[in-house]
């Protein structure tokens, strides 16, 4: 499913004295099966952008085309779009409400008007896909750990079988183990279920390890868009936006300044290791 944004702008509080331009002339193309990280500091417009992608917010100007169709056309089926583009908000576990995990995951597909058998099958499949232990299917979602609750919340969206999954800071507040689990899960979903995953984050190091493409936002505009190693080349510009490149990027640049012939575009520990060993003639 391809998504195209054509000069999308959005004003909060239009016509009032609190008017803020949250998005400014955003043009963007998202292809099938991408794994994208949207990065920016608080207030950069990244969450506003993601809420446009499933029609939760309507652009003040500009167009959004999903599979070639303009979603702002009068006869466009918004409900279908929301089924295709799943949105997982920040702290999604706050939205759990049912008495059992299984019922909670059933809620989404049930609302899509599917029959009971299909709903249950989908819930089962979704919980299986997020690696949730079967013995806990019928326990209360409120007795689970933070990481488990978040899996349940993600399964709830997954059960609606979206083609695109957008997650707003999916690892905020989780400990390192919980964070790795969620990232591994998203990678798996992208690769095995052929989904497009878009995540909003402010952790460069996490994003560098997982995504194929990074979109950097600042003041409602797209500042950089490309593969992690291309984006991190602009580490000085990133700093000015209140962001930072991974520690490794800085290290590699500093080594180069001291005349060690390393690859300054290395962004992960593994890449840096190989490059340093090569530069020192060890391999």
């Amino acid at each position, binding site marked *: 499913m391809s998504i195209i944004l054509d000069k999308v702008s959005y004003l909060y509080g239009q016509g009032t004295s609190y008017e803020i331009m949250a998005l400014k002339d955003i043009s963007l193309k998202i292809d099938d099966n991408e794994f994208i990280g949207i990065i920016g*500091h*608080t*207030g950069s417009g990244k969450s506003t952008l993601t809420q446009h992608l499933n029609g939760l917010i309507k652009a003040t100007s500009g167009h959004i085309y999903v599979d070639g169709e303009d979603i702002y056309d009068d006869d466009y089926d918004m409900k279908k779009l929301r089924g295709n583009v799943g949105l997982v908000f920040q702290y999604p576990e706050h939205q759990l409400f049912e008495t059992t995990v299984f019922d909670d995951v059933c809620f989404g597909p049930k609302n899509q008007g599917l029959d009971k058998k299909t709903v249950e099958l989908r819930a089962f499949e979704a919980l299986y896909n997020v690696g949730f232990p079967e013995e806990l299917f019928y326990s209360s979602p409120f007795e689970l*750990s*933070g*990481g488990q609750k978040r899996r349940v919340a993600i399964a709830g969206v997954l059960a609606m079988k979206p083609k695109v999954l957008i997650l707003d800071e999916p690892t*905020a*507040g*989780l*400990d*390192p*183990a*919980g964070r*790795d689990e969620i990232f591994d899960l998203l990678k798996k979903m992208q690769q095995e279920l052929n989904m497009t995953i878009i995540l909003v984050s*402010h*952790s460069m*190091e996490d994003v560098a390890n997982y995504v194929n493409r990074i979109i950097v936002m600042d003041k409602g505009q797209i500042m950089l868009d490309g593969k992690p190693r291309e984006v991190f080349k602009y580490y000085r510009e990133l700093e000015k936006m*209140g*962001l*930072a490149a*991974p*520690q*490794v990027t*800085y*290290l590699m640049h*500093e*080594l180069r300044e*001291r005349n*060690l012939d390393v690859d300054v575009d290395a962004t992960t*520990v*593994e890449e*840096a*290791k190989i490059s*340093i*060993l090569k*530069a*020192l003639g*060890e391999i």
Partner: protein
Amino acid sequence: MNIIKAINLVHEYIKRDEDNNVSGITKALDDVSIEVKEGDFVAILGHNGSGKSTFAKHINALLSPTSGTLIVDGKDVLDPTKTLEIRKQAGMVFQNPDNQIIASVVEEDVGFGPENLGVQTEEIWKRVEKSLKTVGMTAYRHHSPNKLSGGQKQRVAIAGVVAMEPKCIILDEPTAMLDPNGRKEVIEAITELNKKKNITVILITHYMEEVINADFVYVMESGKVIMKGVPREIFSQVEELKKHRLDVPQITLLAHELKKSGLDIPDGILTREELINALLKVSQQ
């Protein structure tokens, strides 16, 4: 002198079913012994559920130990006559800034703590002024807290605790919900308190980068202290940390990987500068 001394601390959460029968016991703290020297910056690391927050809540007597002893500023937490005194000396800052701010103007929020302690009005304003200055929020004193960023809110929460003039501040994952800028602001404010005001800081976190400059580090898991030492000692045990699925700072991890590949690099590298120097030394050999 030790401001906090925990000896064989145990805390059990007792789960009861509908008929009030005991249905399960969870040992959240299992024989924990921790000492904190006055004026130190001590970090406690661990996963969610490792017991670190339970321990923190013991320090200002929000929770009582099932067994064991905990002395805070020379007072036993089990002595109910000392509870208020202990809470004056040990201030807490929690994870979510939105849950801790109650007033509609920043300076009033900061004044809430000392007012509750019965401090004179004139003295309260002096303290508010000083505390806001310490955390760098003086410019926002007449603002509404809900218009502030996460990092700013958290600094207001810290100022509120500082205004009570405690000897010791316990921060329970104060940066977990903040973006990198906010995290930096808060850590700088805490470091300032520790260095300039000589307030003892106990920082509970799972961000390893934040503990590099601590005086001492405890690592907890399943209610037990599993590692302790100065940061360099802790970070030189990369395999051990990884086994417990804790994060190792990228630079430390890279240094460790390079060493494993045969480079002559010392253990426990914490900063870029250290790694660069070690690598330049190798390249000159």
